[in-house]
């Protein structure tokens, strides 16, 4: 079947609905947010329409720079952990029988039905001193007395990786299943060990998929604000937590909006940079 380029306005018809949705639910709210970020904050009240840069000025400090840096670092770490765990797992999964694959995938999907609140509270119980996993270690003699494993950076990372892992696997799964199995067979025939074949053949073949997955998990993790609160100390709070504080508890919408706009811009910048480097790497 040959694809005709659209001739008339009517041919673009199918696009109107998604475009309208995008306009109403993304462009308009985002535009409003940008506008509010320039409004004047009335201390002890609300805000008045204006065009001031004070909200951005307040954000440009070492303190907020540090929080932004931590949020980005946390999201990158979560993304890398997820892909490192999910890639071998998904590869092994794709080599199982169809039946077992379905069971695994249904199990993973069911994790997605858990809300962030449940995940947070479940992990805080698992990592607690009074009822947590360290009690098992005491039982088998590895520890003298139970210890609290949260709040800590490790707890935040664990919770967030747990939450993002099913997404990672579901994104990687189609690409890995579709991968030509003869690639690996050829590598093995040419005398490469399974590990070597995995890293020298499979990983490069999935380069673009891996990149896309990293970016997706990164953005997913950047928006997290509940798990850092439940499982972390204040120094592990992300910028999203502070945005929530300003918007809900301080009713300082202009400052919250300015922080959110800044976060979006930095995120988009980083994603663009990653894609750019990726493209250069392909050319080389």
């Amino acid at each position, binding site marked *: 079947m040959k694809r005709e380029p659209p001739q008339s306005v009517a041919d673009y018809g199918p696009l109107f609905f998604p475009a309208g949705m995008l306009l109403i639910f993304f462009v308009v709210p985002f535009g409003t947010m940008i506008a509010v970020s320039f409004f004047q904050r009335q201390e002890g009240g609300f805000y008045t329409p204006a065009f001031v840069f004070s909200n951005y000025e307040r954000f440009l400090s070492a303190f907020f720079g540090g929080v932004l840096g931590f949020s980005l670092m946390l999201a990158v770490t979560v993304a890398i952990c997820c892909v490192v765990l999910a890639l071998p797992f998904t590869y092994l999964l794709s080599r199982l029988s169809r039946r077992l694959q379905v069971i695994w995938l249904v199990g993973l999907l069911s994790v997605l039905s858990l809300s962030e609140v449940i995940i947070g509270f479940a992990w805080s119980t698992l990592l607690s001193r009074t009822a947590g996993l360290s009690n098992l270690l005491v039982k088998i003699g590895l520890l003298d007395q139970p210890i609290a494993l949260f709040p800590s950076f490790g707890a935040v990372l664990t919770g967030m990786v747990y939450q993002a892992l099913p997404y990672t696997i579901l994104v990687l799964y189609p690409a890995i299943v579709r991968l030509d199995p003869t690639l690996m067979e050829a590598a093995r025939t040419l005398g490469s060990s399974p590990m070597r074949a995995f890293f020298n053949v499979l990983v490069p073949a999935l380069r673009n998929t891996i990149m896309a997955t990293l970016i997706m998990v990164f953005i997913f993790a950047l928006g997290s604000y509940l798990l850092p609160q439940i499982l972390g100390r204040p120094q592990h709070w992300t910028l999203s937590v502070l945005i929530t504080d300003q918007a809900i*508890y301080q009713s300082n919408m202009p400052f919250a909006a300015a922080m959110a706009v800044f976060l979006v811009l930095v995120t988009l910048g980083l994603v663009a940079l990653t894609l750019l480097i990726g493209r250069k790497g392909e050319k080389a």
Partner: protein
Amino acid sequence: MDTILKTGVSRRAVLGAGVVGTAVLAMPNILRAQDKSLKVGVYGGYFKDSFDKNIFPEFTKATGIAVESVAEPTGEAWLVQLEQAAKAGAAPADVSMMSQVAMLKGQTTKLWTPLDMAKIPNSKNLIERFVNKYPDGSVAGIGAVSWYITLVTNTDVYKEAPTSWAAFWDKANADKLGLLALVSNSFLLEVTAKTFFGGTNALDTEEGLLKAFDKLAEVKPNVRLWYRDEAQFEQSLKSGEIPMGQYYHDVTGLAASEGHPVRSTFPKEGGVQDSGCWALSRASKKVDEAHIFIDYMSQPAIQATLSRKVGTSPTVKRELLDLSDKEFAAVSSDIEPIIPRYDLYTTKSDWLNQKWTELIVG
């Protein structure tokens, strides 16, 4: 599909509707109640459930005004929603229970309809500080309920109850405290000032505030959890995971009565007494009903019921109440309370918030 359509309205449903219809006709109360109604915003969860069960039905019976209770979020989200709605001429709730800081913020945009005290005769029962006034003296809100934030401990871990807020600063309590995460709801600056600097007047100047911040910084190593969500701390307190902290006196009492090993102590410097006001949105058309409601809620008998059933501390004078000493002690204390410096959270809110966030996050 066919079978579903055919079923339609069952005979049972028709009979049921008939019974309900007759019942409604037989009880003119309900019909009348439908003529007059009032939307009342109360904090969602425990508060709303208790009010729905113990207070609102009695009010409808007494006045014929039906109450539709609206669950409002804590924090200032509800204030923002009311303000936005009022700009558009709508009122998601006619009367809302508002925190003191929210009352002051709402005053700046004249969000609250000034109340006519002549229509609220019971307001004379109130303790003076629970009447929230505009700068020109008109009344913006009337005390609905008050509650205490006290020093709470797990009784398994602390056999002896602590007697002073200074326990937070005790080096022996390293990594054992759960404290509220926001400057405007933990009131820890006031606690620090009262405990170490002779009273909340020490916070009058910026210098005094900085001194309080410095003193408060010493608590940081003792804090395991800075919580926004009450459930987060309550669970840990019950299990002994985080055995000490600040929490609400009413909910702690409830947990103790259910057999959990927790206790709430009024320290010798006093508990922190916070309160909520009934306030009427300027977009509401139910001005008369609102006045009747607020007057009803200010009766000593209703305040006593609230203390017994909801566990809140009364906003009317002690001598007017028929609460026994034991009942009164369960919800309040004769120790002079620490009253939060609400003025600071409007005049210096951004500065305080910035310093506070830097203190606990930095």
